[in-house]
């Protein structure tokens, strides 16, 4: 039916933070602590979680911007971390990243057209002669005007810059895009435009996305499959409909109950979580969510809940589901 594009198996990423040269204690921040998921071709996989849950780290690690600590990432069956330089360059064409902050992800001293075109030339997708034409094409698909190509990034607004960043990524005609909170820095009306652009590009080019966000309403609009993260682990993963209609994990329930509904007459029960997300240096024993979970018991402190299939492509990690 559908082919697997990206396969992540038990991915771990620890950052070590040594406390000076005289201290022997070496603490590590467990940013991503054993995450597995697969993305099929054409999927829009939403990765949702609060800040510090390791979403961006996953996004950057699977593109090999960071090294992994453990686990496996396979793109089209190839192990991303064992690629040699030449093959890595090939991977770079197929996968791209769109950053959260459109202000710092463009080099201030390079004209927009050059920024979009240089990778094309480097990978032999365009020659010095026809690069201009191809750049203008990509810019048009991303809703930019031709005269924008000769300007510098600081002459654009946030939304336009994000279009430029998207155009830069799209220039290589990738199959898979990692979106690291691409709309978080934009205001709502621009968010809508950019999200519509994503949908269009997906239809037109058959793209697959890993869409990292903390905004459930954006994810609901765009994604086909959603994973909820908490402190370096996926706590629940299901198709969009399944997740929104039938959330199982208490954390997911709390998140969904926090999504604002633009209707003051609707009454509903809010699940308020107490406290903050614990430190990833020293996570709670057992189920990491237990310190804030409304239904936690002693079992949760003792045993790590298994991430299991509860049917209907719905996975969750909780003892009481």
């Amino acid at each position: 039916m559908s082919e697997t594009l990206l396969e992540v198996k038990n991915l771990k990423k620890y950052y070590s933070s040594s406390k000076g040269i005289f201290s022997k204690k070496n603490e590590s921040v467990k940013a991503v602590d054993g995450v597995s998921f697969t993305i099929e071709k054409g999927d829009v996989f939403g990765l949702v979680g609060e800040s510090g849950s390791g979403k961006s780290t996953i996004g950057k690690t699977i593109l090999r911007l960071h090294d992994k600590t453990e686990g496996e990432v396979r793109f089209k069956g190839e192990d991303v971390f064992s690629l040699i330089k030449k093959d890595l360059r090939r991977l770079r064409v197929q996968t791209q990243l769109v950053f959260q902050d459109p202000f710092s992800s463009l080099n201030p001293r390079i004209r927009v057209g050059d920024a979009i075109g240089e990778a094309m030339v480097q990978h032999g997708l365009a020659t010095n002669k026809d690069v201009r034409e191809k750049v203008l094409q990509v810019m048009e698909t991303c809703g930019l005007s031709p005269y924008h190509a000769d300007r510098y990034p600081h002459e654009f607004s946030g939304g336009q810059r994000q279009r430029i960043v998207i155009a830069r990524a799209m220039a290589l005609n990738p199959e898979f895009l990692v979106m690291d909170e691409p709309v978080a820095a934009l205001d709502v009306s621009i968010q809508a435009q950019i999200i519509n652009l994503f949908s269009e590009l997906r239809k037109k080019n058959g793209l697959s996305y890993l869409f990292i966000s903390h905004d459930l309403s954006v994810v609901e609009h765009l994604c086909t499959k959603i994973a909820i993260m908490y402190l370096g682990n996926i706590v629940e993963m299901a198709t969009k409909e399944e997740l929104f209609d039938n959330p199982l994990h208490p954390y997911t329930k709390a998140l969904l109950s926090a999504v604002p509904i633009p209707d003051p007459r609707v009454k509903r029960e809010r699940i308020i979580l107490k406290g903050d997300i614990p430190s990833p240096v020293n996570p709670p024993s057992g189920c990491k969510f237990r310190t804030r979970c409304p239904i936690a018991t002693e079992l949760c402190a003792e045993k790590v809940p298994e991430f299991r299939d509860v049917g209907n492509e719905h996975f969750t990690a909780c003892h009481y589901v």
Partner: protein
Amino acid sequence: METVKQLIYKEKKPVKVKSPSLWKQTYRRLKKNKLAMISLFFLIFMFLLSFVGPYFSPYILDRTDIAYANRPPSASHWLGTDNYGRDVLTRLMMAGQISLTIGLASMFLSIVIGAFLGAVSGFYRGVVDLVIMRLADILMSIPGLPLLLIMGAILSEWKVPSEYRLYIIMIMLSVVGWPALARLVRGQILSLREQPFMQATEVLGLSDRRKIFHHLIPNTLPLLLVVATLNVAGSILSESALSFLGLGVVPPTPSWGNMMDAANNYMDFRKRPWLWIPPGLTIFLTVVSINLLGDGLRDALDPKMKR
């Protein structure tokens, strides 16, 4: 119908506005800074004086004429003559050629070495960084002037002809100059390489060469330019100091420094101020102008700093 269509067509005519390059924008801001512009024009004037001026001089550089020795400024010798009867103005212009060339060339050389080594060591880090930076540390831990003095003394001992000394002094000055620049560039690059736009170049799969020369170094260029400008002043001063001490450019080749040295006795100092005031003043004004221009450039390149 037609007219409406035409109207719409007119509306849609593409706007063609190419933004001026960042250098042009910088020049525009620099133009507003009067002091910097005056300095710039003074420096251009000094260049013209030094490089074009000698062609209009009726005197030959090394022609001595004892009969005309030690004459005060007059209509035929505008700045008088020195104790060998040579025209001071002509010598001043020729000395300018040498001092400015040494200043610019040694700056250029130390920029090239410093920027390249700094960029490489900041970009690759690890062992490369360690080796380059320790080398820089070693060079920086040796005080500059004594080192130059010793090297100058060695050159005199070896009786290096005065034409060659010029080039050797350039190289000496850049050897002393590059570590500071390399450190500066390295620091900049260490902070730049963590910027999201550098991560973007990684994801885009750009080559290391492209990353360093198209993305990193252009971003350090503004700072580099300012430091380079100020460095020229430093080089001119060092060269003058060395030549004054008789260890830099040696007579008969004139330089601003050794022209002052020629007046290094009480009689010349008191009785013949035209021997030492002109070179002293040119050194002073040139260095001050370069510093003011550098300051102006800093403000023009970084408009965020001001206001």
